[in-house]
């Protein structure tokens, strides 16, 4: 694929990429945009190569997720080193500039699930992926994805049942 083709595909998938990035960044809008910037540049520069083994959407969502995780690790490591030097054990807190999306009813219920369960359900129900595609995007086996899907769905239904009168 040429650069223009990548750009066109990324533009077409941009709104759902943003929604997925938001979910991967704990609803932090600024962080979600930074993740998307890094992801798009990685793909256009060739640092993340699309081999064609899956759909472009699956590949793109996988890179978004990996980029969000890398940024989280870098921030955590920087905060850890700062804490070491400043002899403070304070965890990084959102600053005044951080804009966190108002949690919806669904995101509140999903917050009670394990991260992987949440991710699989979001990809399958929210982004119309199959379990196999979700497994590929998350870099896990299909078997693991199925287990996360079943357990996550069960817990979500339990949370929904508690809400209903």
């Amino acid at each position, binding site marked *: 694929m040429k650069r223009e083709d990548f750009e066109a595909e990324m533009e077409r998938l*941009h709104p759902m990429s943003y929604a997925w990035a938001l979910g991967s960044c704990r609803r932090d809008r600024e962080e979600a*945009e930074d993740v998307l*910037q890094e992801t798009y540049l990685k793909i256009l520069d060739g640092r993340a190569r699309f081999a064609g083994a899956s759909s472009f959407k699956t590949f793109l969502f996988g890179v978004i997720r990996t980029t969000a995780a890398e940024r989280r690790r870098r921030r955590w490591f920087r905060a850890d080193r700062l804490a070491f030097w400043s002899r403070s054990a304070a965890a990084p807190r959102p600053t005044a500039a951080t804009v966190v*999306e108002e949690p*919806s009813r*669904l995101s509140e219920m999903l917050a009670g699930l394990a991260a992987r369960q949440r991710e699989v359900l*979001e990809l399958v*129900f*929210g982004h119309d992926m199959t379990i196999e595609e979700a497994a590929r995007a998350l870099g896990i086996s299909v078997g693991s994805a199925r287990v996360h899907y079943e357990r996550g769905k069960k817990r979500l239904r339990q949370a929904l049942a508690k809400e209903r009168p």
Partner: protein
Amino acid sequence: MNRPPDDDLRRMFAEARRADEEKAPAFRGVLDRGIARRSAKHPRIAWSLVAAAAIVVVISIWSLHRSPKIPPGRIETWKPPTEFLLAASTTKLFDAMPTLANPVPDYSPLLAKEKGRKS
């Protein structure tokens, strides 16, 4: 009519996703900001690397030209700087052939005596 299983979950997730998608910033803006941010971060680093590489190349070429060459025809007389370490007290023994006494003594009576003893 039979609804697909988990249709209610799909609807909930689809609604949440649509709400998020509506708030997405424009693609072109996101990409252009990313490119601008990367260009702002890297030019100094790139130029300093180029300058450092050029200095290394110049120093390498200059030191290659300066290195002393062995002039032709002198290799046979060249002595290593650590030659003095090879000198030993016994070195002179091997400098010249040993000479025999002049005239050479007559050892034949001794040889005859030896022969007599053996028989």
